[in-house]
């Protein structure tokens, strides 16, 4: 087993559909992500980003291949995988009737954070994410930016070594997105392994240590930005992406 | 009928377009189709079948149960009584060696059903030789024992009557003097009338329920549902006035209420006739029984008026909801308020007076009931329609007034109708 916090080997997801027959949403994906590293999954809508991350977070079961999170295999020990990750996506909402403080407390407990240190952790997160102003109002009353912050804080409730963010900035305005990117950067510095998906080129350029370009369920390339520039001879990520995408379809 | 209700609001091509759009989407929405259309068609036969099958099943089980009867101290001259008990279907005479107390406790425990104990008659009866008195022990807490009691009592009564008949013959009382006079009951109502009477007992209440139920989902869906799907704002930005949109939605909800109610009437009429057949008469006679076609215009009009009223209130209530669930809980109290009185205050002898004809909803119940029975009190019908139309107009006016509020219309108002009214009253109080 390598030192990588997350290792994906040949992960495949095939849907069987009555009318379309076999649909390979994710096809033989190989990637790794070490702690203190941000891996960006870059792809167009429907490329297989979400399906990959959903498999990694055990929401979907892979039809082929393996993946290890902190040494736990997805299908063999899904429970241990879940304990090691914090997962955030557009489809993971917050409970509307409870407050941010209660939310953090709840997720810390449910994720088996040592009970005697839960309060301490909750305070820490409230402090760090600047939630104190509205920590005791119900989530349903918060604005979407506030909710987003609470959501991210929620993934950290149990201090997991691996964070999986599926298009975290998609619904945010410029300022909120910027703030979120800063937070993600800080989390990397804390030594987390972070995998996040996006279709925003600039975001990937700024934030990612390595970028995996995914198209039609396949990983077309995975390298640092400079590495990708070297291979393609193009400078901008957008050009690089188009290069690979056109290439694969040709 | 929708045209008439809507003409006050100004029906035009746009209203019809939106109305058609709403109807089309409704027919593609599973819940609405199921609650408004499929449920009445499937539910009644299924339910009635289940009831019938259940009754037959229980009856079969009951018939199978033998009544375990113990006779104690039967005089030899009355041997024939034991014989007729033995011959009686479902009675089994159990030989009993133990004490009588043991038999009583066996009945209490359910191991025996009836103990028949013969004893000497009291002083009033001793003058007749061989007379006796019977003590019959049974257990009312057990069906089997109660059933056994009925079977045994029947045999005992028959035996006593036969005995009395023998005695009077011996005394020379003639048949004619003994029979004295005959008593016969004759029902001069035709089977059709009986069936209609029974239908009239059940259907009006169910009409209220189904009209409300059929309007319920469309009302929530046309407001909260649209907000949930974020199609509300799309609708707001089309080149139609708000009144147009509201009118179209209103007509659509009312249409569903009416159609659901009428469909239910047909389904129920068809299923119930079968159930009621044994009460009414032979099947041939019943072939024509049922709700007279001539009653349909009155019933349909009554149903439509009811639906127009229900739809207006439900729309106002649901207009405050932002989610489907919220909409449901906002409408539910009204729904309960609407149907419960009609469910629990049934009185078949209630007369359709002018006073009752002016009470909304209740007047529709009575109107439909009389129409099913084939009775038409024209003044009451007129008053009913008049009062119901006034009521519909008032509820539409109220709906328009509430929906004129920006916050309500756009769904930004916090809380329901209650809080809205409270807010309005307090703002008026402070301004004056």
């Amino acid at each position, binding site marked *: 087993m390598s030192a990588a916090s997350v290792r994906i080997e040949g992960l495949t997801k095939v849907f069987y559909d009555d*009318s379309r*027959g076999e649909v390979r949403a994710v096809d033989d994906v190989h990637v790794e992500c070490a702690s203190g590293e941000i891996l960006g999954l870059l792809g167009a809508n429907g490329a297989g980003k979400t399906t990959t991350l*959903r498999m990694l977070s055990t929401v*979907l*079961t892979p039809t082929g291949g393996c993946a290890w999170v902190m040494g736990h295999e997805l299908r063999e020990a899904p*429970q241990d995988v879940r304990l090691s*990750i914090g997962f955030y996506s557009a*489809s993971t909402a917050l*409970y*509307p*009737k*409870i407050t941010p403080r*209660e939310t953090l407390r709840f997720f810390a*407990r*449910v994720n*088996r954070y040592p009970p005697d240190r839960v309060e301490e952790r909750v305070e820490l997160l409230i402090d760090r994410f600047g939630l104190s102003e509205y920590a005791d109002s119900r989530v349903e009353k918060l604005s979407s930016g506030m909710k987003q912050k609470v959501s991210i804080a929620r993934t950290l409730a149990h201090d997991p070594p691996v964070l999986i963010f599926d298009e975290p900035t998609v619904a945010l305005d410029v300022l909120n997105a910027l703030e979120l990117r800063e937070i993600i950067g800080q989390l990397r510095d804390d030594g987390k392994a972070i995998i996040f998906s996006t279709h925003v080129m600039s975001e990937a350029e700024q934030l990612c240590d390595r970028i995996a370009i995914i198209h039609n369920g396949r990983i077309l390339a995975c390298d640092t930005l400079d590495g990708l520039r070297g291979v393609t001879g193009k400078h901008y990520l957008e050009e690089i992406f188009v290069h690979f995408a056109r290439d694969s379809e040709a | 009928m929708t045209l008439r209700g809507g003409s006050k609001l100004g029906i035009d091509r746009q209203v019809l377009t939106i109305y058609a759009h709403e109807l089309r989407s409704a027919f593609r929405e599973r*819940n609405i189709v199921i609650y408004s259309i499929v449920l009445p*068609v*499937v539910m009644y036969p299924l339910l009635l*079948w289940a009831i019938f*099958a259940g009754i037959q099943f*229980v009856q*079969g*089980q009951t018939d199978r*149960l033998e009544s375990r009867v113990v006779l104690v101290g039967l005089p030899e001259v009355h041997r024939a009584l034991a014989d007729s008990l033995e011959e009686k*279907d479902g009675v089994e005479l159990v030989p009993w060696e133990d004490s009588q107390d043991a038999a009583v406790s066996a*009945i209490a425990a*359910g191991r025996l059903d009836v103990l028949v104990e013969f004893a000497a*008659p009291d002083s009033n*009866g001793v003058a*007749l030789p061989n*007379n006796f008195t*019977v003590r*019959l022990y049974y257990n*009312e*807490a*057990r069906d*089997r024992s109660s*059933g056994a009691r009925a079977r045994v009592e029947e045999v005992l009564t028959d035996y*006593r009557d036969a005995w009395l008949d023998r005695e*009077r013959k011996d005394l020379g009382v003639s048949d004619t003097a*003994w029979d*004295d*006079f005959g*008593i*016969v*009951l*004759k*029902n001069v*109502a035709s089977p059709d*009338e*009986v069936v209609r009477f029974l239908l009239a007992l059940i259907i009006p209440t169910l009409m209220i329920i189904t009209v409300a139920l059929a309007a319920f989902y469309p009302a929530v869906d046309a407001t909260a549902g649209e907000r949930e799907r974020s199609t509300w704002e799309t609708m707001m930005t089309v080149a139609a006035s708000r009144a147009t949109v509201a009118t179209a939605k209103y007509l659509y909800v009312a249409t569903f209420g009416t159609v659901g109610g009428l469909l239910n009437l047909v389904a129920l009429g068809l299923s119930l006739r079968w159930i009621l057949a044994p009460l009414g008469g032979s099947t041939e006679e019943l072939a024509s029984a049922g709700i007279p076609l001539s009653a349909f215009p009155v019933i349909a009009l009554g149903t439509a008026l009811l639906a127009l009223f229900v739809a207006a209130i439900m729309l106002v209530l649901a207009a405050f909801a932002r989610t*489907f*669930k919220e909409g449901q*809980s*906002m409408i539910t109290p009204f729904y309960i308020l609407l149907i419960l009185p009609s469910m*629990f205050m049934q*009185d078949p*002898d209630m007369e359709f007076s002018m006073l009752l004809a002016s009470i909304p909803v209740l007047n529709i119940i009575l109107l439909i009931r009389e129409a099913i029975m084939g009775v038409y009190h024209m003044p009451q019908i007129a008053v009913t329609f008049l009062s119901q139309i006034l009521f519909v107009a008032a509820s539409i006016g109220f709906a328009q007034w509430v929906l004129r509020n920006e916050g309500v219309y756009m769904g930004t108002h916090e809380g*329901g109708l209650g809080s809205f009214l409270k807010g309005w009253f307090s703002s008026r109080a402070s301004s004056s």
Partner: protein
Amino acid sequence: MRGTGVRAIYGLEIRSLLRDRRTVFVSIVLPVVLMPLLLLASSRVERSRQQREESRHYKYAVVGSDSTFMLELLGDSVRRDGGEPADSAAPTFETVPTTDALNDLESRAIEFFVESLGPEEWRAFLAEDTARADELEDFHDTPVARVNFRSNRRSSSVGARQLRTRLAEIRRVRRDSVLVEAGFPIHPENLATLDVRNVASAVEVAGARLGRMLTLFVVLLMMAGGGVLATDTLAGEKERGTLVTLLTTGATRAEIIWAKLVAVTSVALVIVLIQIVNLWIYLGLGLIDVSSGFSVSVAPATALVLFVLYVPVAALASGILLITSAYAKTYKEAQLLFMPAMIGLLLPTLAPFLPEVSLSSAIVLVPLANVAIAARDVLVGQANWLMIGIAWLVTAAAAAYAGRIAARALEDENLVAGADSDRAAFLGGPALFRKRVLHWFVVFWAVKILLEMNIAFDDIRWTALFHVGVVFLAAPLLMVWHFKLDIREALALRAPKAGVWLGVVLGAPAALIVVTGFFQLVNLVLPMPRELLENFGQAILPEGIPVWQIVIFLSVIPGIVEELTFRGALLHGLRRRFSPVVLSLVVGGIFGFFHFQIFRIPSTAVLGVILAGITVLTGSIFPAMLWHAINNALALYLGSEGVDLGGGTWMTYASASVALALALWIVWLNRSLYPDLKGQLPSRGAHEHSNSARPEPPG
């Protein structure tokens, strides 16, 4: 499973519920306020109606040739009306003159009228009515009082019956005096007197009455109370997106379901408690007096036992609700599933209505039904604690199992993630047919029963042709047309191997005997009511119809069209959903249910299973058609010849079973399997079909 995880989720559920004020109001506060109000109102209405009936003043008329005699008889009552009423609670009667009694009755001027008929009139009337000819024998030329009423008016039927009772009483008194005058030594009322003694105490009787209803009532309250949370908790969470959040945390599926189960259960129990206490208070304060049977005083110890007994019931009800919630993709869908779940749960609670069901029988193994009976036993005061303990455990185990099923639904990624939208629904066609075929059959069943109830022709041939020929033919054709199916594929219109026919000809008569034997066997467990049993053998062939027509209308046409419906369309639609054996059972069972009579369902289902099996084995509808037609023709023929198949010895049934087995073996040897089944059986001839029977082309 860890306590902290369960506690955290439980706390979250309850807190979220309590903070949803509107839901709490609608589902808890409103019912608590409304229930006593309703009981109060309905008992008031009922009481005032009773009072009105008891003290009612009836106007009626006496008509007919002998009316003076009748008026004299009734004079007592009439006179009483003139003066002060003796007993204010008793109804009073008043005669009014009439010229047209029937008309007055209709116009409500009178409630009923007594026709006083002379002996000759009555004799003439009886002679005319052939159905009452035997009454003529016992008629001894007495006058007759005929009370005419209208049963479509309550006051009329109630009043007429009350007058009849009064007349009977008058007659009894007159008779008794005749007998005494003739010299009977005692007053007739002292002859063979009957003294009925109830050995059950008032508590036991009330307990039996209450015990019959209690579980039904309690489960109803539980469903109403727990339902709101249950539908919201899984289905609602799916819709709001919080379920995925929860599922990617470190809480195990078992912890999640367990916490939710406990939450729903505790809400259900609390609501039941609140409602019962609520009722108790109102009953105790005398605000409501429900009919005397229910004013039962339950000892605290009994109440405690009942509460303990109802804990697993609440858990089971919650478990079932959670399953519906877990399998629904949205809140709306969960609500839709709520109704069938509720009916399914309420059905077993009707068990105490069955006569003489003891807990010391197989019923102890039926969850819910066993607790319902245990509750009744406890209330009657005849508890068998061992059996009650078993009942408790069985229901608790069922609740745990329901929880497991719900937990399994959380593993289903299609349900949880709402992964792919329903493409089948989008595209329509054969793929959609497979999904919808059962829905279609439910509606078809209801339509069929409605048609049978309401449409009958004078000629039995037309009736048969309509209900079998038209309706059963229309259904499969409608499905073929609606879903754009290939008609030959869908209805299995292909030739079987030749050897199959031998098996059919041998098997059909044998199966008829076996099925009849099975019917007898079922009748032991599911006895028919006597009345029905008597009518059952009397389905005689209609007279005056040529034999060949009977064969066509009652055996050939049903053989063809019923097969097209069940072994054709239904089997085709379900073929990929169940393994071949289960497929045959399901198709046969549904066929049974289309024979509405519950006592016929099991035996026709057996025939249906055999026919479905034949179709699966031969891949063709035709052998089943022939089998079905032979079966009907033979049954009709034997019936008309008076041969009772039910009277066979066990030897008859055994040899018929051997013959049937032989026939099925012949079919097996000549099999060419139905194409495209789920988990194909080992087959010889399957390949013949596989070319023509590719799964539908895409689109």
